């Protein structure tokens, strides 16, 4: 016979059992472990995050000396103590834009080729080749750009100028076209966000603005030289922002391509097969399934490439001839970017000029940080598949 345990009335004062307190706080050796690695993490944070803090701190004397005109002045005239970064900033953006205009279609097309068109056996080789392209040092690209690309690109610039110079608009016509473009843009944005119109109607104002912009494009081709001379002055066409942009495009293209390819390769197979089963051609499937799925990756990868293009130093230093003028004539000799300004002026800089260069570096830092952060947000959102409902 079993005896049930009976509660002893004599010892009824015993408190009820409570669960042991569980703590995730490490004790003993584990605490040492956690704190050691926390210190390591903090030191790395201090080093990497310290870059921005140091540059910001160092730019205080610059702003005290030159005031806010440092951002609007375009000259970098050490002799007269007139320093400003307006021209280098515009040059930075111009070179980066040229690079993006070239790199973006190539990156998207290469990514589509690798994920959709390439023979499966070649795929990993092509991916490795693209990654290798990203690993080639920028000084090697600079060498390639100066000695191989530059002569050919100069002839291309000459050809473009010869072709488009007759289409150039002057005086009143140019003003009218610029007005049309601005009005079209404002009307389009107003319709989109003010009147909340979506769909086909939007094409009209934006189309007008785009057409005006295209008719302004020959403005980029002006070079202060006669393109139809018997012996054209080729030195006017070398060392331009366009050539630097071509070489920078080669450097940033693989980076954008690898991000875009990764997003494209995550396209659900079922949706692709569904499109094909409904009778779509391969290009139709790419247009209606792969591209919409990877839209976030395309935007994010392009912005990463933009961030890299803004900070690219060596190619610009080696190719471009320094010129401190705000201009949009990409085929003409002379331009300058913030990074190349720093690299080329640092050896001779003294006193206040050093801190002016550091301020320029800080501006570049903020610019790339904003672009890269936005890119990271866009890419991480696109990975979650939120774009495809």
């Amino acid at each position, binding site marked *: 016979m079993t005896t049930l345990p009976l509660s002893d009335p004599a010892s009824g004062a015993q408190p009820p059992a409570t669960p042991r307190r569980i703590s995730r706080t490490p004790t003993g*050796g584990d605490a040492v472990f956690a704190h050691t690695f*926390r210190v390591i993490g903090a030191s790395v944070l201090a080093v*990497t*995050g310290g870059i921005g803090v140091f540059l910001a701190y160092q730019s205080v004397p610059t702003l005290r000396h030159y005031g806010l005109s440092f951002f609007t002045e375009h000259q970098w005239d050490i002799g007269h103590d007139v320093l400003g970064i307006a021209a280098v900033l515009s040059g930075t953006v111009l070179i980066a834009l040229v690079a993006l205009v070239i790199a973006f279609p190539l990156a998207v097309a*290469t990514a*589509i080729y690798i994920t959709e068109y390439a023979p499966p056996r070649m795929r990993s080789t092509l991916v490795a080749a693209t990654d290798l392209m990203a690993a080639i040092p920028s000084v090697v690209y600079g060498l390639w750009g100066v000695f191989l690309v530059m002569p050919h690109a100069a002839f291309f610039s000459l050809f473009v100028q010869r072709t488009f110079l007759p289409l150039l608009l002057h005086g009143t016509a140019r003003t009218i076209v610029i007005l049309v473009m601005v009005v079209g843009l404002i009307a389009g944005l107003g319709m989109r966000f003010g009147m909340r119109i979506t769909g086909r109607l939007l094409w009209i104002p934006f189309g007008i603005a785009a057409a005006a912009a295209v008719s302004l494009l020959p403005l980029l081709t002006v070079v202060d030289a006669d393109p139809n001379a018997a012996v054209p002055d080729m030195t006017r066409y070398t060392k331009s922002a366009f050539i630097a942009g071509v070489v920078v495009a080669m450097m940033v293209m693989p980076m954008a391509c690898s991000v875009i390819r990764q997003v494209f390769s995550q396209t659900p197979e079922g949706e692709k097969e569904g499109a094909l089963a409904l009778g779509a051609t391969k*290009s139709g499937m790419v247009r209606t399934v792969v591209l919409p799925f990877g839209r976030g990756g395309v935007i994010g990868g392009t912005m990463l490439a933009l961030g*890299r293009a803004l900070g*690219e130093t060596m190619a610009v230093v080696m190719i471009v001839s320094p010129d401190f003028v705000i201009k949009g004539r990409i085929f003409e000799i002379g331009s300058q970017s913030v990074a190349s300004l720093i*690299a080329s002026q640092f050896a001779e800089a003294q006193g206040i000029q050093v801190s002016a260069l550091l301020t320029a570096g800080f501006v570049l830092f903020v610019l790339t940080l904003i672009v890269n952060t936005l890119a990271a947000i866009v890419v991480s959102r696109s990975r979650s598949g939120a774009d495809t409902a």
Partner: protein
Amino acid sequence: MTALLDPIDGTPAAPVRQISTALPTKDTSVRPVPRATLGGLPLENHFLTWGARFAALAMAWIITQRLLPWHGPGWFVVVFALCNVLLLAVGTAVFDTNVAVSDRVAQWTVSSAAVFVYVALGSVIVYVLHKGWPALHHANFFTHDMSGVSSKDPLTQGGITHAIAGSAVQLGIASAISLPLGIGTAVFMNEVGGTFAKIVRTVVEAMTALPDILAGLFIYTVWIIAFGLPKSGLAAALAISVMMLPIIARTSDVVLRVVPGTLREASLALGASRWATVWNVVLPTARSGLGTALILAIARGVGETAPVLITSGNSPFLHLNPGSGVMSSLPLFIFDGARSGEDLQVQRAFGAAAVLLVLVVALFATARYLARPASNKPSLLRRLRHALAGSLRSVRSTVARRTPSVTAEEAS
């Protein structure tokens, strides 16, 4: 068929009952229909592809050489490509719909863009190796430095020992600094965690895309302006390590994240401390991935030019002490040579660039080899050993087979 149709006729068919089973006989009167292939394209598409290519070649030749004054290989390629797509579109339109035409054109656009990209990549490699060869094939290029060699001296004098040694010293110091710190940060982000780890991760990820010149500026302001120390190889190494640190930390973070949690839990459940778990379980599991992280960072660091340009100058002689004096390195040598304007210096720069390029490709290939997915295929070494054993066995067996006959001959 008949069984289904019969009730519709209204006359219920009498159930046919056969006593014996009739074996199916092969009907030889029906010729087998060839099965349609699903993967390949129809013959006319192949014909169109190749026909358009040949026709475009011919048209490009006629246009560039006979009709228009566009000489040169560049124009030929451009005209060839345009003719090719035009012929493809027209040819497809002959026997197919507009949708097929746009599909063809889209395929052509995508493929030719990819071809353009890979040709450009190939041109970088081939051009640098080609232009570097005159300098490369002299042995003194690797064993001498440039001390006492003027920029006009022939390529049989002078070399890049100092640049290679400088790069090696700087990378050694940079790796020694950034490897423990980078992996330590990755361990912190993965094994300790918390809000602070998230902040560190965000900052480190943002810093991976930092423009390289800013790393140089940072070390310059801290090391040279704030501490008042001179430009040196050590400063350059520090600048490189600032570039390498986020790369190592981020790549190792990804690698450590995929170490199975069950391994950690098993180790902790066995009573190991967290330190012992990381040291004996987590890090060894991720060893090859950590190696990849280091190699990728070195491949990036070896080509960093801008930070080195600011923090260290170029010197023509072999200099191994990182603490004092300017120290040359491969990228600096290339940069100076390219700017010098002297033909021979430019050739030396191309030689150094070829060395750098080969180095980067080798590092890159090693990293990919280490990071390759585990395959079921036996390793190269084992396959070689297997093949060797197999051939040995066959040799032995032939010897064994021959031996009795020899003895038989001797016996007779």
